[in-house]
């Protein structure tokens, strides 16, 4: 078997030389950005604590893109989807960043193990001693178990991400249909693992920041936002590649149209889940739950909440409703970029109010440096994971179907 791609594929699908340079440059900028963030944070009132929180926001933001993409890969195998083969490789690459990105969790672990209650207040023995509610949760919320769990989540994701990327690349060479069947076979159990790890990771890393608060839907909330972010990122990535002359013919307006539908669907799904969570807590009005929303509904955070309501749900919902928008590249890219910003704001809104409850939101040099730093590192990771491999699953048996795909 030779590495002969599908007959109907007439595109460039490899990065050129500049990729190597970009990996190094972006990596360097990322490290410098993070270091600057640490240094700036030393001059802040909250000190390193601010850096810890903002690091968590940016980390989970980029993590969620990889997780969302991994889910798309798994679901497309599970459902034997054909239309999306042209962009599935891009999702696989985003998923393949997960092993590398697992290493970036180490600073958070460091804040936990050496910073006491800096990031997670349940890790501060002083607080736990005076808080009977947290004492109840110590069997779950303790540094040791937390570390073990985090290791499990990260290992599962890293394994899933690399497994699907590896097998898909194997098929690039062999064109073996068995690989497709094998990936399909494991996608079901993989999704179950995925579901539980993502849920508990969101409980551990975001919900437990306020160890008193709890919400059973929280995992689904995070998942909905993550998949939406990943779709937006994929749309932008595809357009970026096409702008650079890659995959110009393969990904057509029909695929963008369907990606736009998915984006619209997940905007709605996120809105549905967010509304369900808010509605039930607002309606039952039990103080142990409402306090979490109270922080986000008073003072400066009210503004952020309203921006999320309008910007994360109402506006894009109305904006993406029309097929003319979804079939227009510029508009679709615009909405994708907008929703990526909103997804970041969503995580910021989940995490940052725990830093300084009373005070409103603030965004300073520390946050900016951390976001840019981790963003550049993430971009570097993506390009590194891409390697010199094809940007499209060149010998996937369903590639022809995908290339010829047309919306009704």
């Amino acid at each position, binding site marked *: 078997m030779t590495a002969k791609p599908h007959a109907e594929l007439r595109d460039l699908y490899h990065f050129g030389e500049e990729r190597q340079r970009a990996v190094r440059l972006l990596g360097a900028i990322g490290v410098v950005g993070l270091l600057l963030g640490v240094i700036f944070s030393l001059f802040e009132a909250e000190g390193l604590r601010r850096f810890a929180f903002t690091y968590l926001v940016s980390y989970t933001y980029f993590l969620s893109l990889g997780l969302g993409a991994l889910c798309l890969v798994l679901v497309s195998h599970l459902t034997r989807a054909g239309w999306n083969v042209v962009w599935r490789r891009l999702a696989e690459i985003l998923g393949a960043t997960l092993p590398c990105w697992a290493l970036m969790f180490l600073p958070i672990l460091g804040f936990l193990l050496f910073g006491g209650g800096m990031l997670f207040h349940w890790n501060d023995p002083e607080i736990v001693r005076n808080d009977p509610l947290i004492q109840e949760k110590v069997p779950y919320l303790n540094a040791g178990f937390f570390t073990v769990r985090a290791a499990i989540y990260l290992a599962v994701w890293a394994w899933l991400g690399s497994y699907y990327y590896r097998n898909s690349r194997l098929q690039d060479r062999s064109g073996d249909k068995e690989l497709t069947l094998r990936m399909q076979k494991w996608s079901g159990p993989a999704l179950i693992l995925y579901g539980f790890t993502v849920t508990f990771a969101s409980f551990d890393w975001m919900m437990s920041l306020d160890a008193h608060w709890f919400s059973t839907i929280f995992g689904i909330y995070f998942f909905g936002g993550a998949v939406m972010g990943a779709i937006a990122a994929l749309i932008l990535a595809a357009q970026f590649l096409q702008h650079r002359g890659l995959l110009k013919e393969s990904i057509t307006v029909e695929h963008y149209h369907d990606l736009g539908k998915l984006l619209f669907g997940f905007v709605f799904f996120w809105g*549905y889940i967010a509304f369900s969570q808010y509605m039930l807590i607002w309606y039952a009005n039990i103080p142990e739950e409402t306090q979490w929303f109270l922080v986000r509904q008073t003072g400066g955070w009210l503004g952020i909440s309203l921006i999320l309501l309008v910007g994360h749900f109402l506006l894009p919902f109305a904006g993406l409703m029309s097929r003319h928008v979804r079939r227009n590249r510029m508009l679709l890219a615009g909405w994708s970029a907008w929703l990526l910003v909103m997804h970041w704001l969503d995580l910021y809104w989940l995490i940052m109010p725990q830093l300084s409850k009373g005070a409103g939101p603030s965004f300073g040099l520390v946050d900016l440096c951390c976001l840019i730093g981790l963003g550049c590192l993430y971009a570097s990771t993506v390009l590194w994971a891409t390697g010199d491999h094809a940007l499209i699953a060149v010998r996937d048996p369903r590639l022809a179907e995908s290339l010829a795909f047309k919306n009704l």
Partner: protein
Amino acid sequence: MAGTLTTTVVDNTFEDPGNRAPLVLGGQDYASLTDTICKIPERQWPSMAWFICFGISSSLTIMLFGLIGHLIFTGVGVWGNNHPVFWGWPIVNFVFWVGIGHAGTLISAILCVFRQQWRTSINRFAEAMTIFAVVCAGIFPGIHVGRVWAAYWLAPYPSTHLAMWPNFLSPLLWDVVAVSTYATISALFWYMGMIPDLATLRDRAKERWRQVVYGVLALGWTGSARHWSRYERAYILLAALATPLVLSVHSVVSFDFAGSQLPGWHTTIFPPYFVAGAVFSGFSMVITLLVPSRELFGLKDVITVRHLDNITKFILATGTMVGYAYLIEFFIAWYGGNPYERFAFINRAFGPYAWAYWTMIACNVITPQLFWFKKFRTTPWIMFVVSIFANIGMWFERFVIVITSLSRDFLPSSWAYFTPTWVDIGMFVGSFGLFFTLFLLFIRFMPMVAIAEVKAVMAHERHKSGESSHES
């Protein structure tokens, strides 16, 4: 081009990646497909089996209405509802039936939105089931209001003697609006899908009464391309509208519970969890009805094992989602640290209703796991048995939610064990009678497979096979 389809492929459950497996088998063409489906309602007299089933189900229906009369003239004391279990079986039955009523619109709408062509063979069937299930569901809250003759107070009308409005802040009222909207849209969707097939029946009819009845119902459909164009647009629009509607209806049903403060009811995962459970029970009911029907009416070429395979995968997926929700609920009940919440869940699993809880777990989470194995996904009688278990399990899920949380609330002095009366049991059984009566009438008089849609799939498959033969 118009040649017959190759009939060598029999097992269409295996899919060679890159070549889509066929969805209609047996070398059917448009005429024979039409004939296969239309001859069922066109028979002069239905079979003996049909009459026996109809006799049983209509007797049960009469019993149901008799019991409703008994209830209205005597009062809700004939039920086992007590203090503090005010909701009892009627609400359990309501949620059970509404849940079943979700698969129809899910198959038609969501699968249509996701371009799953296999839906065409089963959507009519499932939509009919939806509407009959919603009819059964609607009865229970209707009679549960106690004073049935005042049920119109639920409607917002400028009332002269109350001088006030319904309380729109109440999830119970949202439920009324949601379920009636759902019933309306589902009925429209069902009827709209049937118009072309009713025209087929009209054009094939020999007796005058059939020509008139089907003629009126078909509204003068001719199959004009200009009509088809708007029709298809309208169909996709309705599907797109019905998709969030399906989500919303069972979410609103879940608000009935989760909006309260009762431990075991108030938890934020309820909306998506109820939707997953509803889809699970709906698909199970589809299997329960589909497996015998395709056997009895010779529809194996149209409703193939591949269709059943796909449905069982849905059952597996949604059953696992429900299992996820059970687990997360349990975990958060502990994690939340609220002693009442913890008690509610311990009480579910080990209290007086532990038998119900473990029945639910066994039927909803464990039994569907059989469908990981292809053997079980492709053997109709096994999936029939599993689907019965799933139906039982989903009824028990609602029983567990409604009864255990209510029977042991915050105040131990008010705790009470719930025991159903014969009226409770009779009404539940009677609701099955009503459901099957409507269903039997449906398969007697209406086309039970969406003929036009299956033909479109056949045309698509022929077109593709024509193309591929060009290439090779």
